[in-house]
């Protein structure tokens, strides 16, 4: 059990499962933990791109936005059934990822960062133009997604465990994908594209598939986020949010999906704590970010390995 790749996430999941019974059961803290798990899910999916495929996407918030706006569109049409909402959100994001990824993956390096940013901005401006769904002001959901007519997700405890379950599933999926042949081709193309090609692998379809899978998971996170806040706004798709997601991945460390998981939780908790502790919390948060980049090269999980 010396490999933090496995025991660390299990520890975190156990902690999250126990949290509601350790005096965190009521009020704000469960909402906060749900937020942490939702961003954890999104960060884990981004990790597949950044850590696995070496594709630094600065437009991942758009994937979450697709999922969230799928909830909005269905909610406006009076449909709140989980078996429709969840697949719709995931499919919308996957489709968006497929269309934009097909173009974006033709570029690499800095150009990839910029073109994903461009697509993210397009999605951002599209959502702010949807007058029917509140435009810039956003849209307040009538109610949370229902499961066969039952309002289970309104219960904080149930929602907590739904988020946890989906987080574990996505973490496991990314873990398995990275260890599989698919993941090894991705990593090989990242490390040395020429050699990967010489071995007969064209990186393009692998990268595109990774992009679509990550997008679908981002969409799932978006559906959960919409349900958690019961409100959706174009700000969910802002490029700063994509920057936050990237930071979560790096903060945790690129060694594996467990890094993204820890990074997202740490990010959400520190942000929450700082924003309550002081008005101008970004004055501390910004330099903290810089210091992390300077001194925390392997991320938080890098510290563990050394310790």
């Amino acid at each position, binding site marked *: 059990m010396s490999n933090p790749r496995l025991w660390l996430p299990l520890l975190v999941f156990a902690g999250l499962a126990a949290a509601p019974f350790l005096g965190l059961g009521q009020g704000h803290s469960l909402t906060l933990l749900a937020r942490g798990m939702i961003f954890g899910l999104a960060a884990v999916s981004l990790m597949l791109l*950044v850590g696995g495929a070496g594709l*630094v996407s*600065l437009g991942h918030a758009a994937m979450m936005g697709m999922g969230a706006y799928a909830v909005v569109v269905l909610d406006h049409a009076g449909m709140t059934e989980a078996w429709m909402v969840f697949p719709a959100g995931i499919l919308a994001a996957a489709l968006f990822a497929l269309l934009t990824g097909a*173009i974006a993956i*033709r*570029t690499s*390096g*800095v*150009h990839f*960062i*910029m*073109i994903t*940013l*461009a*697509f993210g*901005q*397009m999605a951002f*401006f*599209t959502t*702010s*133009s949807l*007058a029917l769904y509140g*435009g810039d002001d956003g849209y307040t959901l009538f109610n949370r997604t229902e499961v066969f007519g039952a309002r289970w997700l309104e219960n904080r405890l149930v929602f907590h465990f739904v988020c946890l379950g989906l987080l574990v599933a996505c973490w496991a999926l990314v873990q398995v994908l990275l260890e599989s042949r698919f993941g090894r081709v991705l990593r090989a193309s990242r490390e040395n594209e020429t050699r990967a090609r010489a071995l007969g692998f064209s990186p393009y379809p692998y990268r595109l598939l990774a992009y679509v899978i990550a997008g679908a998971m981002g969409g799932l996170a978006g559906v959960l986020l919409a349900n958690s806040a019961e409100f959706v706004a174009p700000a969910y798709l802002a*490029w*700063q949010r994509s*920057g936050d997601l*990237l*930071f979560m991945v*790096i903060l945790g460390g690129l060694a594996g999906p467990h890094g993204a998981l820890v990074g997202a939780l740490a990010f959400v908790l520190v942000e929450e704590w700082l924003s309550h502790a002081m008005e*101008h*919390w*970004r*004055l501390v*948060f*910004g*330099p*903290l*970010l*810089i210091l*992390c*980049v*300077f001194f925390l090269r392997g991320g938080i999980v890098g510290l563990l390995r050394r310790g």
Partner: protein
Amino acid sequence: MRRVGEGGFVNTTLLLVQGLNGLQFGVLLFLVAAGLTLVFGVMDFINLAHGVQYMVGAYLGASLAALTGSFWLGLLLALPAALVFGLVLEFLVFRHLYDRDHLSQVLATFGVILFLNEGVKVVFGAAPMQMPVPDLLSGGVPLMDGLLYPTYRLAILAAGLATAALLWFLVERTRAGMLVRAGATNAPMVAALGVDIRRLFMLVFGFGAMLAGFAGVMAAPILSVEPGMGDNLLILAFVVIVIGGIGSVRGAFVAALLVGLVETIGRGLMPDLMRLFMDASSARQTGAALASMLVYIVMAAILAFRPAGLFPARA
């Protein structure tokens, strides 16, 4: 004076005004993008914090002008102040990031943005600041019958073009400029030939910061000076340098004017165009969003066909 760019029908006057506004926005973009593309080209350094240099320039200009009571003194003092500010940032943060990967650079400079956006809020307050238009440049110039175009906007256009010409001279006709171009093409080779590339970079960096600050001061009287004002401009400046080709000043100039025109004319015409399909209020909203998207569509199209931009510095 007739209000410009507010709805109405499409005609030559409107197009002329939109075109001038677009060019004027384009030269502002160029001033920001020029520093960004050189820093990016020479040192392979992604500086997201370049947009806040523009914001800092605007704040320095507005507060110094208020302090001295003169626009010109404010402008004159803000330029060296922006230069010093840029060099301080370079010394404190950016210097330690040159040999790191792009991801680290993006994140650390993102931290600088968070800090400075909040910092100006603490120092100057969250409310927008105003900077008065100097008396010399107030009023308008009659362009055609019944159309007065603000003198100040024309002055921005002229100053921007003059700066672009100066920059062209510096980059194409001086020894330092030659080194900068050589650095953008192959930095390790330039270093191997005995040029102190770090010092060259500090020069480029300081100059870029000053240009962005200059753009900020000039924009201050026509835009509101507020926290976060650099963020959207930064993204557009990145679009500009990616379209133009990273490291190419010429490319940045062409792309900046293109982006400025597309953005402004799109913003002016799209709502009217949309009115053909929908009612007025949703046409305004959809049109504005479509106009904002137009630039990114142009960029995605250009990158899809020319992945290295229009004028790549590294052939």
